[in-house]
């Protein structure tokens, strides 16, 4: 298999595996944490002991998920230093600073308050305990913020300047990095998707109890809280998803083209509601149709991407050939350069870096200034210097297209589910409708599929860039053997699978046990 997969492929696969496993645990922490906090708030306000019992039950499940998931993300940081050392050095403190803040925040906030949350019942005041519960979930959410800021910077690098002396990008505006529109949308979209999962999780377990005619008080009360949190989360997910798509259209048009399978852009572009890609379409340059079958909503993609009914949305071929009107990073209107033009500028930038280093060694200041100027002028397309064929800048369209449409379809399903469940609760009909309760139960694995699809869209859609336009994956990699990465890939697969089995096993045991002895 080594012959088929290079070190880049294995390293990418390993990173994807780790990130996707990590992402099984994180959203439930964020969502269930919020729900537990709300339940404890109800207990604090009403003094109703059954809410305390309910809170403690869900808190136990929160604890199981937290314990199994904690520190699984650290493995990603190991991989930066080993597999992606060029990248790690190149991004310098921009990536390091948010991750360091995340580490400190996570350690101090979560580890302090989670102890009070679990050990503090009847030992600290009700108010202090409630504060600790809220601060635990706020700490987890702020941790997510820093990770997502770092990720957003990779998709839209701002607030930095490249220093050829250190060969590093150096941050000049922390605020620009933190408040980038990509980061803001990504943060709210990701965190609230965790709320949706939390809501579905609570509804699913509650529905199972109702079907088994057990823990009826807990299940009915929890079902309502879960459905409301899920609905609010879903509405914010939809709003920020729209914001994210708008940002993608401006900053990563190739990703949007792949998400929608658009090869030839047009004004008033429709949105593919359902489509089957043509497997015979092997290259952007061939004349095969992109779809075997498609149902489109007229003009909707233009509205979402440009906020204009007849706005132009470029397709893959348009982006490769250039020539359409777009905006640069500064927000000025420009005619989009072709990929070949970007490659030429990128090569100038890379050669200028080499020339700069050579002049530096020779002590030739004049040559250093000239090379530095050429580097500055062309740095925007630095990563294109490593591209040898325009087709390399196209992400894997089928993965991105299908993942995007799975995510959107399931998102719509969840919105409908929350509304229907709340309506049925209001009419006092839900608890008699067995099939609807089973729908709630089986929605849990579907929610995980939806969340993982979101990550596939975000991360595969930006390929080949590890930093958009600045560094492709194949320039970010360390000089290590593919066999080494392959070995650790399977080790991670085994470790995470064991952890997942442990989580599911302990969770199921606790759910079956119910609230006895709580």
């Amino acid at each position: 298999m080594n012959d088929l997969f290079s070190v880049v492929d294995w390293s990418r696969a390993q990173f994807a595996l780790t990130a996707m496993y990590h992402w099984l645990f994180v959203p439930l922490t964020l969502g269930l944490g919020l729900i537990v906090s709300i339940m404890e708030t109800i207990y604090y306000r009403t003094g109703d002991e059954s809410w305390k019992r309910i809170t403690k039950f869900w808190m136990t499940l929160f604890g199981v998920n937290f314990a199994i998931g904690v520190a699984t993300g650290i493995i990603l940081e190991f991989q930066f230093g080993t597999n992606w050392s060029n990248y790690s050095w190149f991004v310098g403190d921009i990536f390091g600073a948010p991750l360091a803040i995340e580490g400190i925040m996570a350690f101090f906030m979560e580890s302090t308050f989670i102890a009070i949350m679990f050990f503090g019942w009847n030992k600290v005041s009700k108010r202090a305990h409630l504060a600790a519960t809220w601060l635990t979930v706020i700490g987890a959410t702020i941790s997510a913020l820093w990770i997502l800021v770092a990720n957003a910077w990779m998709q839209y690098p701002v607030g930095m300047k490249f220093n050829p002396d250190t060969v590093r990008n150096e941050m000049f505006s922390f605020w620009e990095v933190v408040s980038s529109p990509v980061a803001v949308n990504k943060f709210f979209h990701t965190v609230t998707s965790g709320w949706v999962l939390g809501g579905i999780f609570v509804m699913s377990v509650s529905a199972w109890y109702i079907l088994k005619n057990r823990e009826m008080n807990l299940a009915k009360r929890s079902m309502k809280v879960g459905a409301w949190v899920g609905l609010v989360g879903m509405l914010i997910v939809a709003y920020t998803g729209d914001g994210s798509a708008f940002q993608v259209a401006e900053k990563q048009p190739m990703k949007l083209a792949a998400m929608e399978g658009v090869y030839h852009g047009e004004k008033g572009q429709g949105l593919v509601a359902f489509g089957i890609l043509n497997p015979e379409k092997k290259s952007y340059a061939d004349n095969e149709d992109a779809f075997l079958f498609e149902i489109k909503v007229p003009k909707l993609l233009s509205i979402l991407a440009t906020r204009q009914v007849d706005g132009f949305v470029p397709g893959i071929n348009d982006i490769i050939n250039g020539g359409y009107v777009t905006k640069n990073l500064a927000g000025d209107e420009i005619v989009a350069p072709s990929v070949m033009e970007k490659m030429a500028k990128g090569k100038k930038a890379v050669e200028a870096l080499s020339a700069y280093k050579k002049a530096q060694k020779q002590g030739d200041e004049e040559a250093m200034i000239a090379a530095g100027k050429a580097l500055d002028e062309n740095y925007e397309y630095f990563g294109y210097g490593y591209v040898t064929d325009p087709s390399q800048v196209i992400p894997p369209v089928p993965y991105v297209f299908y993942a995007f449409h799975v995510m959107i379809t399931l998102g719509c399903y969840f919105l409908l589910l929350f509304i229907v469940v709340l309506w049925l609760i209001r009419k006092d009909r839900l608890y008699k409708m067995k099939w609807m309760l089973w729908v709630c139960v089986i929605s849990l694995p579907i929610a995980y599929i939806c969340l993982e699809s979101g990550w596939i869209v975000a991360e595969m859609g930006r390929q080949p860039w590890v930093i958009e336009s600045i560094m492709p994956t194949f320039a970010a990699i360390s000089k290590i053997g593919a066999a080494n990465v392959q070995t650790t890939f399977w080790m991670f697969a085994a470790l995470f699978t064991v952890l997942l089995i442990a989580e599911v096993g302990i969770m199921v045991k606790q759910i079956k046990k119910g609230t006895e002895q709580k």
Partner: protein
Amino acid sequence: MAQSVVSRNIFVRIFYFYLNGFRSMTLGWTLWAIILIKLFIMFFILKLFFFPNVLNTNFKTDAERAEHVSNELALPIPNSDNK
């Protein structure tokens, strides 16, 4: 059995808060065992034997690391045929 300790010293109180918390755990022991085994595997096996920091291991100074990355980024890049 949870122990009730009254002390003026805040650190002693925090210590007993944690001690009693750990003592009264039921499911928590299993979770702590999982956490500790996981951290051991991650830091003492994976990190130590499989995930060295390439630049820190192979180079002593930042200047050497910068030089190495600069050479790596000079054209042509190996693996550039991979997307």
